[in-house]
């Protein structure tokens, strides 16, 4: 099994890289990081304290959703701690969790939480969730002349279940009376071909927001109707939407922007239609309840400005480290991500966490036990 798995994983990664390159060439919006600059001054206090030097080499794998952010973190951390090395291999949340279970990696990225039944499988014992960033998942579409599209979760559910097959369906028109004339043609639904945390969070949102209309349940892959189109990765789905008139698909904000897709406004819990943005994601995070293990659910959050499809992501790390050097490096890396790292998150289309969450995450970091 191992050689097949390694080969396919490597090739998949190469495919994704190539596909991302291809779409990136298609033109991209410029991302403004002015908000990041604003917060720099405020948080300068936390960074002036001299951090201890660490020298460990860390291996990690897991969720691909936050990988772009983690890669920036790893590069920046290398500048701050030249003797430490971190690699994040991606591969998916399931791979990350399995690798952490078997102690193959020093920490793992995950978009979902561990089921209670799986917890005894973790050979290193108790583990912590450290929230890192969050990001909106867009509902992107390709429809000439319609620059503003409002969709409620019920309508999204029916579209993705192929119950609504044309753009002039009364349910869509009712939400977009101004665009009535332009709402024509058949709908093509684009979804992921691979298992994905993006699919998991998108379907969780539908389960939460439209429990009666949505009946495909949630998961990193679900039983999509046969006449939906599958694309590999966010870039693959974005490509289908871009190439197909009348297409609609769920894509993370970074890829939707890079591909130049139009993004629907989604009705939130407060009844407002909100465009996918980092501000919308941050607004969702402000209303969350943080559980004791630092898990939280920013989907379908309260608040007028909250964008309802905001996906969380965590890094999982064992509470008791077995290696002093590695343990210190993990702690330092996560500390970096939660302090300096938060300022650059928006430059790669991820929403930084609210100060209250950061505070608790840092407190959790302090609880990591390192052998003397």
């Amino acid at each position, binding site marked *: 099994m191992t050689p*097949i798995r390694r080969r396919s994983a490597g090739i*998949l990664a190469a495919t994704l890289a190539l596909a991302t390159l291809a779409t990136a060439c298609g033109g991209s919006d410029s991302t403004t990081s002015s908000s990041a600059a604003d917060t720099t001054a405020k948080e300068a206090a936390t960074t002036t304290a001299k951090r201890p030097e660490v020298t460990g080499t860390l291996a990690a794998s897991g969720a691909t959703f936050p990988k772009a952010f983690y890669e920036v973190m790893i590069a920046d951390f290398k500048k701050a701690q030249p003797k430490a090395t971190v690699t994040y291999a991606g591969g998916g949340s399931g791979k990350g969790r*399995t690798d952490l279970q078997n102690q193959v990696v020093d920490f793992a990225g995950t978009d979902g939480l561990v089921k209670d039944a799986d917890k005894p499988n973790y050979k290193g014992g108790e583990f912590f969730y450290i929230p890192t960033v969050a990001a909106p998942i867009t509902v992107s579409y390709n429809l000439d002349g319609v620059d503003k599209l409002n969709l409620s979760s019920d309508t999204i559910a029916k579209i993705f279940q192929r119950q609504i097959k044309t753009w002039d369906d009364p349910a869509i028109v009712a939400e977009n009376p101004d665009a009535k004339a332009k709402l024509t043609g058949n709908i093509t639904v684009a979804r992921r071909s691979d*298992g994905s945390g993006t699919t998991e969070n998108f379907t969780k949102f539908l389960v939460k927001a439209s429990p009666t209309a949505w009946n495909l349940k949630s998961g990193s*892959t*679900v039983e*999509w109707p046969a006449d939906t*189109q599958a694309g590999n990765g966010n870039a693959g789905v974005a490509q289908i939407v871009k190439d197909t008139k009348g297409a609609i698909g769920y894509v993370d904000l970074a890829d939707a922007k890079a591909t130049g897709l139009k993004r629907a406004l989604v009705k939130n819990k407060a009844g407002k239609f909100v465009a996918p943005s980092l501000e919308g994601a941050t607004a969702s995070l402000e209303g969350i309840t943080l559980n004791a293990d630092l898990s939280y659910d920013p989907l379908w959050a309260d608040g007028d400005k909250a964008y309802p499809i905001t996906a969380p992501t965590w890094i999982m790390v064992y509470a008791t480290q077995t290696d002093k050097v590695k343990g210190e490096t993990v702690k330092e890396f996560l500390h970096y991500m939660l302090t300096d790292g938060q300022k650059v998150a928006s430059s790669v289309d991820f929403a930084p966490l609210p100060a209250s969450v950061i505070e608790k995450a840092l407190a959790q970091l302090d609880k990591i036990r390192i052998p003397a």
Partner: protein
Amino acid sequence: MDAPLDFRGKAGIADRLFGFAALAAGTIVLVALGTIAFTTTRRAWPALDAMGFDFITSTRWAPNDEVFGAGAFVYGTLVTSTIALVLAVPVSIGIALFTTQVAPPRWRKPIVYVVDLLAVIPSVVFGLWGILVFSKQVLPVYELLHGWFGGIPVIGALFGETGSGRNFMTAGIVLAVMITPIITSLSREVMDTCPTTDREGAYALGATRWEMIRGAVLPHSRNGLVGAVMLGLGRAMGETIAVALVIGSTVGVSANLFAAGDALPARIANEWGEAEGNWRAALVGLAVALFVITIIVNLAATAVVQRTGERGGRR
């Protein structure tokens, strides 16, 4: 320093060493195969145990309901491999015959070179070509075929509606392009071994070129050709990434060749990263299924070769 030429003692040792080495090499293959079969089955066991025989017969694959039926993927693997063989075998054998029997000697090298070059292109390149170029441009052709044959009873079912360019047919065609160089180059080697005396003999009896090929070259190379086709089929059934990109990744069994589906290795590649627990075990189960199917197909091919060989002998 003039030692007498006596090989007996040394030859004895060398012979035994060689015999031992050959035995070891042969055993290693069997041990490796056995180990792979054992470990994969063991890791797949939780899912196989939970699903029972439904694992192969069911066509419902719902990880979030812990239902794992590989039927649709087995079907997809068989369909795409069949399409690939139907398209690639005649072309490959044609190219092999052309280069060994028909083409002027100075043409042979460039043709052989180009065909072999096709074999070294990584499968991901075929996959990307398939998804970014071929699957889009071939769509009008599919629609044309649907228009021509769609109305005919029975056959029409194969040429149904086209949703997108990512379907069984596209996967089969991409696979055909990938396996053509393998079948071609093996067939060529086999045909080259046909003794000149056989060929000259056929000509001497007044055979035309085609009669010579049919009477001397093809019977002589039959076993080798079947072997070549089997290797091609092996690659087609095991191909992962090119198929994963162009087959459409949909769980479904449809006679329509223009419908999206999925194949065993493609599904493993697509879901491995997110899978845990029984889901992961079920994906390993798909690998076991692929393993078993490959063995069955190879055994069947061997049986076919033996039977036709006997009949040929009696002729």
